[in-house]
């Protein structure tokens, strides 16, 4: 009650000091992030548009060529086609996120849930498929020449079907939590489509789990890839001593290094930021507004970088492969033949040589097994 009685006094004596009080309180005001939102409103739509154009072009070319001209000979072929589908679906969510960055989420809870689930399903599907491709390439080297002929055509087809169903099934299951937890919330007069987890979960337990998951979600696929490709690399260098020319060996190595390097370059920064954010949830490390803003910006930039991976997949996994180049050249030739004769005819032999180099490397390390050109580097 004292409190209230003093109020008049306080008002009279200190009314001139109120503005001082306001400035004294400076350290504990709300951190205004309008700046960050304005940055995101420009940066994200630009990056997403570029990613959308490049990604749609690359991935739909892959789908088109595979479906129309290339036989799906190996498990890796099947995985690459699925990878292109997953990347396409992922890219289709980008216009929604771009609109969200500009105006906030204005198209309802259902759209929020579907878009989020589609995003995470295809992101995890992409990750799983990259790991699958590395496993299959590794297996192509380790399996003996005897085993390759064993599964007949039907058996192989069934195996592919099972693997694809397994990958997509897992990816859909991984997308389900987003379907459940994502919803539209309103903060600072702006609608956001974001995950709201039930409060029942202990904060520390949740954050610890998140750290484990964050580090492993990137680390595990990465370690699988590094392990498999290192073994492939060793096999390649052994093949080289057995007579394959240095230039061709280097060409194959280059592909492996590019695949692992690009994965590391695009995914590592994003996962580091995620790790810092998860640590912040437990220990509340970020108490300065400027630092918090920088973390938000870093999150936006690294997330965009991580996303560019799905535009690079067609180049890394398909266009570098010489057999695919040949198919595209055939397509181009067919088109230009009607228009202006047979001008591209002399390009064919060079491409065939590079194709041969790919198989040569392969067959040397695989003891002349023609069927196991599983990865056409």
């Amino acid at each position, binding site marked *: 009650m004292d409190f209230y009685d003093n109020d008049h006094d306080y008002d009279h004596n200190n009314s001139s000091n109120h503005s001082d*009080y306001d400035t004294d309180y400076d350290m504990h005001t709300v951190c205004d992030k309008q700046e960050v*939102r304005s940055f995101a409103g420009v940066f994200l739509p630009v990056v997403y548009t570029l990613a959308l154009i490049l990604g749609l072009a690359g991935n739909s070319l892959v789908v088109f060529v595979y479906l129309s001209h290339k036989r799906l000979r190996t498990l890796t072929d099947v995985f690459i086609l699925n990878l292109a589908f997953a990347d396409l679906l992922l890219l289709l969510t980008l216009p929604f996120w771009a609109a969200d960055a500009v105006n906030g989420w204005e198209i309802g809870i259902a759209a929020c849930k579907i878009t989020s689930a589609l995003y995470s399903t295809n992101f995890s599907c992409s990750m*799983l498929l990259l790991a699958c491709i590395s496993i299959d390439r590794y297996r192509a080297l380790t399996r003996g020449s005897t085993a390759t002929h064993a599964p007949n055509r039907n058996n192989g087809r069934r195996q592919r079907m099972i693997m694809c169903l397994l990958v997509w099934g897992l990816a859909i*299951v991984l997308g389900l939590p987003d379907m459940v937890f994502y919803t539209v919330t309103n903060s600072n007069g702006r609608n956001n489509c974001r995950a709201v987890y039930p409060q029942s979960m202990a904060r520390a337990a949740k954050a610890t789990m998140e750290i484990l*998951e964050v580090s492993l*979600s990137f680390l595990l696929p990465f370690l699988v890839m590094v392990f498999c490709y290192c073994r492939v690399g060793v096999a390649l260098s052994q093949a080289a001593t057995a007579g394959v020319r240095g230039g061709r060996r280097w060409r194959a190595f280059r592909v492996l290094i590019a695949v692992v390097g690009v994965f590391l370059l695009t995914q590592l920064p994003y996962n580091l930021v995620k790790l810092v954010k998860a640590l912040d949830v437990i220990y509340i490390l970020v108490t300065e507004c400027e630092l918090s803003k920088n973390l938000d910006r870093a999150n936006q930039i690294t997330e965009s970088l991580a996303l560019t991976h799905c535009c690079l997949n067609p180049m890394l996994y398909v266009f570098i492969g010489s057999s695919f180049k040949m198919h595209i050249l055939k397509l181009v030739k067919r088109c230009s033949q009607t228009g202006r004769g047979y001008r591209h005819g002399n390009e064919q032999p060079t491409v065939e040589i590079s194709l041969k180099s790919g198989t040569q490397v392969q067959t040397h390390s695989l003891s002349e097994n023609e069927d196991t050109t599983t990865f056409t580097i």
Partner: protein
Amino acid sequence: MLLQRSDTKTRMQTSTVTLLVIAAVLWGNIEAFSDTAVDCCLTTNDTRIPKQIVASYFHQTIDSGCPIEATIFITKKGRKLCAPSEKNGWISKIISHLDKKKKSPQ
């Protein structure tokens, strides 16, 4: 032939197990985008705020995407001050004062 078939089987099994492990690890942590930067109190101050400078208040929750819970007092000058979320003496007094004012606008 028998040997080859069992070989195919084990190969399938290893890749299936690898997939399952990766999937288990991926679970739940892939969150979609839209980490929209939200204005939040990052720290709070338990120093009493004179109630006559406060115009309104609201609660900051973790649900809204903020790291901590807090009570935010908006001053007449439009500043947003961060106070603890606990309903201790001075905070609940200002809140009830503001609620009363809201009910009977002068």
